[in-house]
């Protein structure tokens, strides 16, 4: 009896201690959510439309594309690399799927096979990135930058004008709702949860942290370093492919300018969320904060009708201040 009570009490104190440890270990996560809260309060004071349920769901829906890409990017950044090809992977998936839709006269039966095809294209491209990086020991950032440029050329070769012919049923991915909540927002929530569980509770997820922390230590602990690295790039390109498929349902056409700039934006979101760009440290919860911050910033810009010429200036300042604020010691 007394023992059970003690246990409960002990469990509770240790939970509080856990909270304390979390606060001490994750100042950047608390900071980013603090900034988001501040931005939300400020925005709803300046413009009451901000608080409306439709705008809030709109923000969540706008966060899906960059969110998907940023989840994949987090995994790559946690290994100590960077994937600059994600935007072009998203674009090529959209273009390929739209091209086949057009060739098949917008056949509804093709939707599921084509979604699978799109994901496979992404995984394949990611596998190629992973192969290049693990086999040649090249700098991931620069080599994926090159891959992105090749894909940019290939995308232009596929089409330089928007491709119509996406069946109406496909647009449901973007439009379908339960009550007021769009289904895709709910699914996205589940994906964030799954990504968090994967990175914090599973073996391959922890291996990503281990490889990013110290590749040599991971190798000596008999982790499959090359496979873990390759897996991170496959995941990142696969998430990019999902983003491309989602973008296709949003615009309804295969857009040859889709996802422009998403590669760097996703890295900015990851960095804002406090994941160390040298790898091995951080949390996907922070990435969610970074994504939300970028999307809310954009939303506030358009609600307050900030001149487009000043938007980039502010964005640049946010990035510079954010990266200068976190000092991530080099592990050299």
């Amino acid at each position, binding site marked *: 009896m007394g023992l059970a009570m003690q246990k409960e009490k002990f469990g509770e104190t240790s939970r509080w201690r856990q909270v304390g440890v979390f606060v001490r270990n994750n100042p950047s996560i608390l900071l980013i959510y603090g900034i988001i809260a501040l931005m939300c309060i400020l925005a709803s004071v300046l413009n009451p439309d901000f608080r409306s349920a439709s705008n809030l769901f709109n923000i969540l829906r706008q966060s899906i594309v960059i969110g998907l890409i940023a989840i994949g990017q987090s995994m790559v950044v946690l290994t100590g690399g960077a994937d600059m090809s994600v935007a072009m992977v998203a674009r090529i998936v959209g273009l390929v799927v739209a091209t086949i839709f057009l060739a098949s006269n917008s056949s509804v039966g093709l939707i599921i096979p084509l979604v699978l095809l799109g994901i496979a294209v992404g995984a394949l491209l990611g596998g190629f990135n992973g192969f290049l990086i693990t086999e040649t*020991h*090249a700098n991931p950032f620069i*080599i994926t930058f090159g891959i992105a440029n090749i894909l940019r050329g290939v995308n232009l070769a596929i089409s330089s004008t928007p491709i119509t012919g996406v069946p109406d049923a496909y647009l449901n991915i973007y439009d379908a709702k339960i009550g007021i909540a769009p289904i895709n927002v709910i699914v996205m929530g589940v994906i964030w949860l799954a990504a968090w569980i994967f990175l914090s509770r599973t073996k391959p997820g922890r291996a990503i942290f281990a490889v990013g922390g110290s590749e040599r230590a991971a190798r000596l602990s008999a982790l499959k370093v090359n496979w873990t690295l390759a897996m991170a790039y496959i995941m990142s390109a696969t998430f990019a492919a999902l983003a491309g498929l989602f973008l296709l349902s949003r615009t309804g056409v295969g857009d040859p300018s889709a996802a422009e700039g998403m590669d760097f934006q996703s890295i*900015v979101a990851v960095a804002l969320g406090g994941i160390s760009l040298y790898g091995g440290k951080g949390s996907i919860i922070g990435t969610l904060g970074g994504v939300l911050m970028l999307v809310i910033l954009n939303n506030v810009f358009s609600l307050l009708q900030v001149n487009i010429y*000043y938007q980039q200036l502010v964005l*640049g300042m946010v990035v*510079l201040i954010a990266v200068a604020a976190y*000092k991530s010691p080099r592990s050299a």
Partner: protein
Amino acid sequence: MNELSVKPKLAAGRFSAFRPSPRLIRGVDLAGQWAAPIADLAILIAAAILAPGFYSPTNLKTIVIQIAVLGIVAIGQTLVLLVRSIDLSVSAVLALGAVIVVQTTSGSSTLVTLVEALAIAAVIGLANGLLVSKRQVPPFIATYGMLVFVQGARLAVSKGQASGTVPDFLRTIGFGQLGPLPVALLLWLALNGLFLLVLKYTRFGRWIYAVGGNPAASRYAGIRTDAIVIGAHVICSVLALVGGLVLSGYIGYVDLNLGSDYNLNSIAAAIVGGTTFTGGRGNLFGTAAGVALLVLLLNLVVVLGLPIHWQYVMQGLVLVLATALQGFRQFLLSR
């Protein structure tokens, strides 16, 4: 006792079966250094066979001026890569300089404007260097933030459209000739010569190699490594600005997309020319050959009448192959 004193590197060696032969190491090292000049020759020969229009005087002049512009930017990029950094803001600085000079020449004197533009470039380089060295921000994210910021500043100043005319002295630098040779080429050669001497014979130049090769050892040897990194960034930004002035003089007008692909091209030129992104290895001869390789390839796409998206593919291929080669070379040399 004996087990514990085994060095980690040796212990790691037990796990990997791959043991490169000295011949392989030597071969990859040579390939990394000589790939660009050999590819240059191959392209020149291929162009003579495939595209007769390639050797027309006007096309040659275009090529030479493009080499000069990219070459000037790539000198700075090489210095930055040598100290283990990278500069993604060169394209923004390049365009900003052109906008400043073109927009303000109507009012004030050209000399004042030039000094003003150079000072702004130096400040941008200084900020890059401070972020990279003092705050230890990964270079690509710091300089990319700078790219977005500078582009934003340019948009805010020019309201999206740059007006004004390119002053005469820039036209002379960008398009004029001194005897048979374009002025831009002479400027590039002079800058190349200057920085070859700086890298080879000055303390600053030798320290650049030292800091890139082994930052920790350099620090222990009493080199102020942060100052060297900042110096390299300042030089890189200033050279990017000079490249922008020559480019605007050559094109004759300034638009929003001016110089947007100089980030990728300058990095690719340096890396294909034998500079490794892990620092301390590389030289300006290699970079010059890399610059020529890129410009020749891009020009060949135009002369052969291929669709323009082949230029992206070419740039990407050069960058991917060069990065893979240099990465492998560095890996072999460091074993």
